[in-house]
């Protein structure tokens, strides 16, 4: 699998999805495309024809506003028809702004109220341990989201419960809605914090590099007694220069048809 080409295709599809509506959570969607590609096209034990397959690996996107990137991947994997992508946020859609496990085949948890998805992932990992189905539970949190106390409540429990079947990612794109995370309420040093909470920590300098992500996941799977936090140093809006340049303003940004065309060209 050529991860880089696949990531480009997923980014194009994400832009088309949000572009069809004209506005959306573009920054935080584009920053996680690479980790989604490595998970869905290599690591996850899943069956798009059987989205509820017992014992499958799961992914919970706790920063639930990044739904559009996941929808692009799920459509490409065949969970549903690609035409669905153009229904984002339209009346009676199956693809709402925020991830919804009851509306979208392949979505493993309903998220959007920040902090909760991460605790849900801990619960899923705990359940999988109890039934011994050897599933791996993946979850993605935001750096801004990491300001929620619930993240650290869940983190403390998962460390103590030795949930080595839990592999989490922090999309450390350094930005939230009101500004740069460092200026709003700094979450650093993330690695030291997660280590102190009993986690195995892998920090990746370029969190948009699929190969680095792949290596980190391979290593995380060997953890014998600890959950793993992979800190992805990413760029919010990664892949499209004018969106990257918008900085934190790309969190939920309007996209004109001209901008969509420009973005697609850059992603050719």
């Amino acid at each position: 699998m050529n991860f880089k080409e696949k990531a480009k295709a997923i980014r194009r599809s994400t832009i088309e999805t949000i572009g069809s509506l004209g506005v959306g959570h573009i920054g935080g969607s584009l920053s996680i495309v690479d980790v989604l590609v490595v998970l869905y096209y290599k690591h996850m034990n899943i069956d798009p024809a059987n989205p509820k397959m017992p014992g499958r690996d799961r992914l919970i996107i706790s920063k639930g506003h990044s739904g559009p990137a996941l929808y692009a991947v799920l459509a490409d994997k065949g969970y549903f028809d690609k035409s669905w992508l153009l229904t984002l946020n339209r009346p009676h859609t199956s693809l709402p702004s925020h991830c919804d496990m009851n509306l979208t085949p392949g979505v493993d948890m309903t998220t959007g109220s920040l902090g909760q998805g991460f605790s849900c992932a801990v619960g899923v990992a705990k359940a999988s341990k109890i039934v011994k189905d050897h599933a791996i539970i993946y979850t993605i949190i935001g750096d801004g989201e990491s300001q929620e106390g619930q993240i650290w409540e869940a983190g403390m429990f998962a460390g103590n419960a030795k949930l080595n079947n839990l592999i989490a990612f922090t999309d450390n794109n350094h930005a939230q809605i009101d500004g740069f995370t460092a200026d709003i309420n700094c979450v650093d040093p993330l690695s030291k914090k997660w280590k102190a909470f009993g986690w195995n920590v892998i920090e990746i300098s370029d969190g948009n590099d699929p190969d680095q992500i792949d290596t980190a996941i391979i290593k995380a799977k060997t953890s014998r007694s600890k959950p793993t936090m992979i800190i992805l140093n990413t760029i919010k809006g990664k892949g499209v220069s004018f969106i990257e340049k918008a900085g934190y303003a790309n969190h939920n940004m309007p996209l004109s048809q001209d901008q969509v065309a420009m973005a697609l060209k850059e992603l050719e």
Partner: protein
Amino acid sequence: MMYETMEMRQVFANELDKAMAKNKRICLIDADLCKANGRASLDAKYPKRAFNVGVAEANMISIAAGMSSYGMIPFVATFTPFATRRVCDQIAISCLYAQQNVKIIGSDPGLTAEYNGGTHMSVEDIGVIRSIPNIVIFEPVDNTQLVKAFPQILKYVGTMYIRMFRKVPTPVFKDNYHFDMFSADIIETGKDVTIIASGIMVSAALEASKILKKANINAEIINAHTIKPIDINTILASVQKTKAVVTCENHNIIGGLYSAVAEALSANDPFPMEAIGIKDRFGQVGKLNFLLPEYEMTPEDIVKAVIKVLDRKR
């Protein structure tokens, strides 16, 4: 002042700015939604008293309560679901039980969260906090009302929840309008039915009233801008005259305005009631022009409810 074209968030930010300039004890705490609500300029202007705690709403509420115990007057602000159900215990204990003076601003109530969808649509915010003793719940209808309310919000000592529309509201009140936080407004007088509305549903009720007039039905339109404590005197006087009630709210009909009015009337003098509002369902993504018909909350739905309640009139 031309309020017709202004977004309510901007009007709110302007009023708060004026108040903060005058009174150095007024503070503003945000939780990563100040840009979305036009308050970023206040952070720059009052760097000590206006600050952002990040995405940490529970923390925000209790920090505010602590500041209040020190004599400050903190305003806290986020979207309605995160200002209420997310932080229910902190509001109950740090704010109300501890008798503190915290002004909680929630924006984008009910269906008005539009594209943010079900997770962000508070159908239950009034319901979950209305049962906390002593809390005041105020839902401004338009910019004129919000501006007139502002001095009373500042003067009131105690915890108050302000449920605020974010965009440009339909103007309802004139400049000469007299506002009292604890009195409901009679916007139109009528003898056949009392329509009690709050928030964005007030303009819908006024539209319904126009349609009803054509059928020779004269509705009395009341704005219950303060849902707790509900102004039972104004409501009772109207209902004893019209003998039928329809409530209209942008909230679950369980726990909100319908409940508040039904509770108050049944303890005094009950009459047939019908409810317009979210009928015990969650929200979903969409624009208001799709959502309002979907949830049966249009002026035409109000008209139907009036006809139904008139049928039940004794």
